[in-house]
C-alpha cells in the first residue's frame, strides 16, 4: 500500500488567523461551531434514545468546514452536500427545528419527513440539496454554477464532498466540465481520512486529492479543516476567483471525524487512541479558542454557547413534539 503523500493533517496548521478575520467573523463562526456541535451531539443522543429512525451520519469534528465555507459565501450562492450534511445546512442558516424534525421523520421536517438525514434541501438559504449517492453533489453544484455564469448573477456554487467520494467518476467529470466551461464552482473536500472503514490513503493510492485536482486545471489548495478561519479564507479566495470568471477551485480540507462513519459504527478499524488524539488536536472548537477567537473573551464565548445550546434544545423539544409524517 503506497504511503500517503502530501495529504494535509487536521490540527497541524499554526499560522495566525488571516488579517481580515474580524471579531464579527469570529463571533459568527463561534456561534456556528457550537450550534453544529451541540446539534450533532443532540442527534446522537436522540438516535440512541430511539427518536431518530434508521442511521445517521453526524459531522462531529467537521464543524469548521461547514461554518467557514458558509461564512465566506454570499446570498444567492448555492451549496450542495452529502450524506453528512446536517452541519452544512445549519451553517447556512437552516432552522434547527425543521432539520431535527426531518431526522425524526416528522410532518414539520425540512422536506416533510420524505427525505430524512441524507436528503435535505433548503434553497432559500442556499442549500440546493444533499445527496446520498457519493460524489453526486459535485456535478449538481456545477449546474448551479453554470446557471450563475449563464445568467450572470455573480453567484458561485460550492459542493461539499468527501475523500471517498472524490474517487467517483462523476466528480472527475465535473472537474473536467468546470475547467472546460470555466464555471464558478468550488469543490470543498472534507478529507476525514476514511470512506466507511476504508482509509483514504488506501483508496486514493496515497495521492494528494488537491494535486489530482490541480492536474485537471483547477486552482487547488489544501487547508487545515479544523481551523474555521483558514477554511473561511480559502473559500473566500476561491469565491473571489470564481466571481472574477477565473474558474473553478478545489479545496482539500483535512478534518477529524470524531464519531463513527455512522451511528452504528463500532470503529474496530481504528484504535480508540485515534479519536482521543483527534479530539485533542483537531477539534474545531478547541482550535477556534486557540487560534481564531480574535478579541472575544471567555465570557462572550460562553454566552454565545449558552444561546446556541438553548436554541438546539428548543429545536429538539419542538421536533419531538411535532406530529409524525404519515400517509
Amino acid at each position, binding site marked *: 500500500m503506497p504511503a500517503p503523500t502530501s495529504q494535509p493533517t487536521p490540527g497541524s496548521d499554526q499560522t495566525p488567523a488571516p488579517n481580515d478575520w474580524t471579531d464579527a467573523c469570529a463571533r459568527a463562526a463561534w456561534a456556528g461551531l457550537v450550534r453544529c456541535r451541540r446539534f450533532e451531539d443532540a442527534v446522537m443522543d436522540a438516535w440512541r434514545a430511539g427518536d431518530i429512525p434508521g442511521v445517521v451520519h453526524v459531522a462531529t469534528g467537521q464543524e469548521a468546514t461547514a461554518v467557514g465555507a458558509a461564512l465566506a459565501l454570499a446570498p444567492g450562492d448555492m451549496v450542495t452536500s452529502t450524506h453528512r450534511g446536517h452541519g452544512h445546512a445549519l451553517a447556512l442558516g437552516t432552522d434547527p427545528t425543521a432539520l431535527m424534525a426531518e431526522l425524526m421523520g416528522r410532518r414539520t421536517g425540512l422536506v416533510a419527513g420524505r427525505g430524512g438525514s441524507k*436528503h435535505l434541501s433548503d434553497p432559500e438559504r442556499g442549500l440546493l440539496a444533499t445527496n446520498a449517492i457519493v460524489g*453526486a453533489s459535485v456535478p*449538481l453544484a456545477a449546474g*448551479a454554477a*453554470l446557471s450563475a455564469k449563464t445568467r450572470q448573477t455573480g453567484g458561485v456554487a460550492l459542493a461539499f464532498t468527501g475523500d471517498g467520494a472524490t474517487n467517483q467518476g462523476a466528480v472527475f467529470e465535473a472537474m473536467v*466540465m468546470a475547467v472546460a466551461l470555466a464555471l464558478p464552482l468550488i469543490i470543498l473536500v472534507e478529507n476525514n481520512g476514511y470512506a466507511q472503514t476504508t482509509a483514504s490513503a488506501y483508496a486514493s493510492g496515497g495521492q494528494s486529492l488537491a494535486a489530482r485536482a490541480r492536474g485537471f486545471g483547477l486552482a487547488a489548495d489544501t487547508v487545515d479543516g479544523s481551523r474555521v478561519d483558514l477554511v473561511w479564507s480559502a473559500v473566500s479566495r476561491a469565491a473571489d476567483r470564481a466571481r472574477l470568471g477565473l474558474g473553478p477551485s478545489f479545496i482539500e480540507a483535512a478534518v477529524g471525524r470524531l464519531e463513527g462513519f455512522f451511528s452504528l459504527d463500532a470503529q474496530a478499524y481504528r484504535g480508540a487512541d485515534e479519536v482521543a488524539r483527534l479530539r485533542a488536536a483537531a477539534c474545531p472548537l478547541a482550535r477556534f479558542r486557540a487560534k481564531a477567537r480574535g478579541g472575544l473573551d471567555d465570557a462572550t464565548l460562553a454566552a454565545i454557547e449558552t444561546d446556541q445550546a438553548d436554541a438546539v434544545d428548543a429545536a429538539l423539544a419542538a421536533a419531538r413534539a411535532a406530529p409524525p409524517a404519515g400517509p
Partner: protein
Amino acid sequence: MTDRTEPSSAACSSAGYSSLGASPADPSAEPVTYRAALTRALDDAMAADAGVVVIGEDVAGGAGAAAQGGTGGAFGVTAGLYDRFGAERVIDTPIAESAMLSMAAGAAATGLRPVVDLMFADFAHVAADPLVNHIAQAGALFGDAPGQAGHLPLVIRAAFGAGDRSGAQHSQPLHGALLRLPAIRLALPATPADAYALLTHAIACAEPVVVLEHKRLYDTTGPLAGDALPWGRARVVRAGRDATLLAVAGQVAPALDAAERLSGHGIEVEVVDPRTLNPLDLGTLTASLARTGRLAITDEDRCAAEIVAGRLAETAFALLQAPPCLICPAPGPVPFAPGLEDAWAPDAPRIAEALRRLCTDG
C-alpha cells in the same frame, strides 16, 4: 448506397437546417424534415426564452469553438444555433455525460431550462445515476415548485433505433428503461409535426422530459404543423375495427404499411401512435380497444411493450378478446450486418402476419 443515406452527416444536416431557414415566414406551408423540425423547435424556444440553453458534445461543433455554424451535433439537429445564440447558450462539453446530466439538473433547479443533447440513447447508461437517483426523485423529495430543488424544467434529447448499421451500442431503445421512472416524461415523435410540437412542449414543460428521436426518421419529411393534438394524447393514425395496433416511433411507418396490406384481405387494423409514453394515453387506447377487442403492440423495445401490455391487461382486461400480441425484436443486441439488422425490428410483412394471426386465430 441505401446504407449510407440514413446516418446523417454534418453536411446533410446543415443543408436541412438552411433549407428550413429559407422559409421562415410560413413554417407550416412546405414540408420539412424531422431534423429541421427539431432544429426549429430549439430555435423558436431559444428565441422566446433566454433561459433555454443547449448542452452536449459538438452541439456547437468545430474544435469546440464552432467553425462557421459548426456541425450541430452528431445528427445536425443543433446546426446554426451557435451562430444565432452564441457559446453561452450553445454549450459544447467534454465527453462526460454523467456530469452533463447532473449539471443540467443543477442548472434547471436554479433558473435555466437546459436541453441536453445526449447523442445516442445508449449513452444514457453512463449517466443513469443523475437520471434515476436524482432527476426522477427530486420532485417528490424536495418539491417541484419554482425555487424548489425538485423543479427541473429540463429536456434530454437522444437518438435511438435500428436501421442505420450503427451496431449494438449505438442503436438500443431506451424507453423501456425510462418507463419505470414515473417522474420523467417521455415523448417519441414519429413525424416532423410531432417532433416540433412535442419538443416545443417539452422545453416549455416544468417537469423533466426525455425526447427520443428515431434515427431512421431524421430525413423523413412532412409539414411542420400537424393536427394539433395536445401533449399526452395519442394519435389514431388509421382507423380500423379488427385490432388496435400501438406502434411506437420508428414502428409507425411499417405498422401503417402492414395495416394497408391487410386491408386488402378484409382485416382493418386501427393504428395508434402514442406520441408520449409518459403520460400514456390510456383513454384513447381503451376507446380503440372497445371498438376492436384486440391489442397488438409493435415496438423496438420489447420491455416497453410488455409494460404497456401489463398496464392495459390491468386496466382494460374486459375489452380484450384475445391475448395481447407483442410484435417486437427477439432478445439480444441490435446486430450490425444489414441482413441481420433488417431482420431485427419487425417489418411490415412480419407485423402483418402477426396481425393476421391475431385477427383470425385470436
